[in-house]
């Protein structure tokens, strides 16, 4: 499991082991200030980072920035 969340300290406190910081509370995988194509690219980069996190061996809680 990888947790994509904006407020990383909360994800850490509740015990997520693999954490990927998200963009905003109301739009974790988006940014309404961007044009749709750029926004989708951003979304993709976050999800790819999440997949990479799942492919990374870790010992403790890790934030993948």
């Amino acid at each position: 499991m990888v947790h994509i969340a904006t407020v990383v300290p909360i994800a850490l406190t509740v015990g997520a082991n693999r954490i990927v910081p998200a963009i905003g509370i109301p739009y974790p995988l988006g940014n309404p200030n961007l044009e749709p194509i750029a926004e989708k690219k951003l979304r993709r980069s976050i999800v790819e980072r999440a997949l990479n996190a799942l492919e990374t061996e870790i010992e403790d809680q890790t934030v993948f920035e």
Partner: protein
Amino acid sequence: MKKFRVVHYINNFFAGIGGEEKADIPPEMRVGAHGPGLALQQAFGEEAEVVATVICGDSYYGENMESAEEELLEMIKEQSPDLFIAGPAFNAGRYGVACGAIAKAVQESLDIPVVSGMYEENPGVDMFKKEFHIIKTGNSAADMRHSMPKLATLGMKLLKGDLIGSPSEEQYHTRGIRINYFNDKRGSLRAVEMLLKKVKGQTYETEYPMPDFGQVAPNPAIKDFTQVKVAIVTSGGVVPTDNPDRIESSSATKYGIYDISAYEAMPSDVFTTIHGGYDRTYALEDINRVVPLDVMRELEKEGRIGSLEKYFVTTTGTGTSVGNARRFGQEFSQKLMEDGVGAVILTST
């Protein structure tokens, strides 16, 4: 008799500015007591005065922690306070984290006592209980009448340098700070007495309850994603537009499992979000901002992942009890495993 100066921190909602749609307001300062600050002032009586109230939107603080803290500290410093009160935040997670962060900063920068109030499940409690005193409150603002006086009482004690009693006496969350004292019986004797009670099946009381953080060991890394089925799980409250299972907007007592196999992206006319804890405007424009189906489909087509599960799992994160959340997770994880899911992407708002 000097009247102590108090500054009070509250959020957009308690300041009467607005609900979720105003959670993005930047820091501001207002003279005197506002909202629940009036109850705080009443509790202080003649001994202290709430000279100013500083306000910040919960989402603004969460997304701009450093700059919000700087701005607020400037405003607070100008008031030369003797005491700082944050909240109480009850069970509001973002508010609790903001209260904790700003109170900690005030304590460090201004070297004055600070007090807050939160419900035990507020993430702010675990994060900040060691830094300063957090009064135990109920889980909603219905508890304001009972809680606020406790914040005032503890605040005054700290100001006057009075001896602060135990967590149960003063009603703050256990801080995990040990204070030495002399018991009339030595420890080894007490331990053996406790053990004998335990062995005999009699009731005994531990002197030190073990905290339950519910940590799990990290799973091993995925070696070959092309062989793995991935599932999306969200706490963002995304549900079909008619919310057939009536998942609550807050304090969810259920989760839902919904089919997305027909879609290349989350369609806004089929799904919506009912989450009551964040401004839904942006998610309603494009649900993929919370459940990234469009991108997951691309990755599936490109062969980056083996496949995407044909359903996603959802519930509302805000206010949902730890007990319920744990139960949901245990239940749907069973199903995910039975369905051959090898990895989960969990998104939270």
